[in-house]
């Protein structure tokens, strides 16, 4: 059957035509197109990677910012707490010191006052004794003019001493 018999001429022309087209396309067309597709694929991949990395970095920065804010908050609370504690301590200390000082001053004052009182009393006693002596001397000088009077006095004094 004619339709199923290959013809030499057609095979010859097919070889030439297909060979030439195959050679030209394999050299000038397909490498360019396939290479460009591949290059673009790689480019898109690297761009996606870069975008992903940037996103991760932004997320990291956000996290870091939150961390910093939280740290600062904690620090503030700590500082306030410390401040309150030291304030209380200072006030307490001051109060204590003041109380001690007051007690000491009072004690000292008391002691001094006692000592002064003693001294005053002692000097007052001396004074009184002196005055009494002078008065007694004056009185005695007045009364010792007569012997009677001397005698009576002697008796009185002796009686007093005896008592």
């Amino acid at each position, binding site marked *: 059957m004619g339709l*199923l018999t290959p013809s030499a001429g*057609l095979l010859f022309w*097919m070889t030439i035509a*297909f060979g*030439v087209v195959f050679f030209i*396309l394999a050299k000038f067309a397909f490498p360019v*197109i*396939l290479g460009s597709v591949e290059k673009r694929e790689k480019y898109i991949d690297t761009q996606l990677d870069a975008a992903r990395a940037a996103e991760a970095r932004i997320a990291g920065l956000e996290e870091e910012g939150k961390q910093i804010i939280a740290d600062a908050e904690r620090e503030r609370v700590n500082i306030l707490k410390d401040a309150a504690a030291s304030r209380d301590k200072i006030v307490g200390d001051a109060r204590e010191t003041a109380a001690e000082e007051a007690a000491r001053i009072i004690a000292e004052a008391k002691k001094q006052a006692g000592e002064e009182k003693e001294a005053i009393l002692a000097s007052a006693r001396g004074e009184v004794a002196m005055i009494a002596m002078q008065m007694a001397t004056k009185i005695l000088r007045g009364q010792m003019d007569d012997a009677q009077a001397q005698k009576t006095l002697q008796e009185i004094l002796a009686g007093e001493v005896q008592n």
Partner: protein
Amino acid sequence: MMRRTVIMVFAALLMLAAPQPMAASGHDGDSFSPKELVMEHLADSYEWHIVTVKGHELTVPLPVIVRSSTGWHIFSSNKICHGGSYNGLYIAHEGKYKDKIVEDVGGQQRRPLDLSLTKTACGAIFSMLVVMILFLVAARAYKKRDEVDYCPRGLAGLLEWLIDSIMGSVIKPCVGHNYRKFAPYLLTAFFFIFITNLLGLIPIFPGGANVTGNISVTLFMAVMTMLAVNLFGSKHYYKEIFWPDVPLFLKAIPLMPVIELVGIITKPFALMMRLFANIFAGHSIILSLCCMIFLTAHMGAALNGSMTVVALLFMIFMNCLELLVAFLQAYVFTMLSAVFIGLAQEH
């Protein structure tokens, strides 16, 4: 496959039915023969017939290149196509070499070496040119600009999409890691078959030639695949053929090597027959449907009119189907070639 079988049976029935109305109309001098018309289209010819207007044929004469007993002869086909003879060369009208150029040597018809640019050869070369121009134009679009800047548009975008889908769905998975080496051949084969199939569906010159429905063309493509498979086959592939892992008695006879060697031929043979039969059947069905209009021309206006409508609807349907087949057959050819190549590669 089921659908194709149905279509083939339908076409065969149409062909069987054709002679009856023809015989009926034969006596009134009108000798319209659908079988002849369809076969004439499907077979190769030395000239490219475009249209016949009122008995006047409009044809494109093609160069005839022949080496006969008197040496090389190159001349236009219109010198011999209508019963003429040139340097003792003429076209046989019957016998073994029907419709082929022959010469008489010693009273016997002899076929010279015939390298004529026939209709099929010209159709093939034309679609090769189309493929080449399409891809060179597309490749130029890439060279002109930085390829990472934008997606390609227009022709380059279309072809890139096609190439990428064939690369991604056929060549890479079927061939395996060595796919780069075979991609140019497989892509050229795919686009040649695809574009040729599509051009074959266009009924106007220079389309409409039955190129991929010609056994020589599909034989050539199948041989190309066979060469790609066997010339680049791995050691492992050849060991599987000549010394496979089977019991020794199967190799000693040697049954398995013979089967494997037959397999080398049958794989491309199946490729050749599949493409040929599909495109051949498609062309014959569309032409047969077209013939229905003219076959019913003598059967009255009502029958002829309704058959024209029916035939037209069927032809539109068939053309749509053939568009699918045009892609499918190119795809199947490429995919099976890629699978055969992949099987012969290292894994």
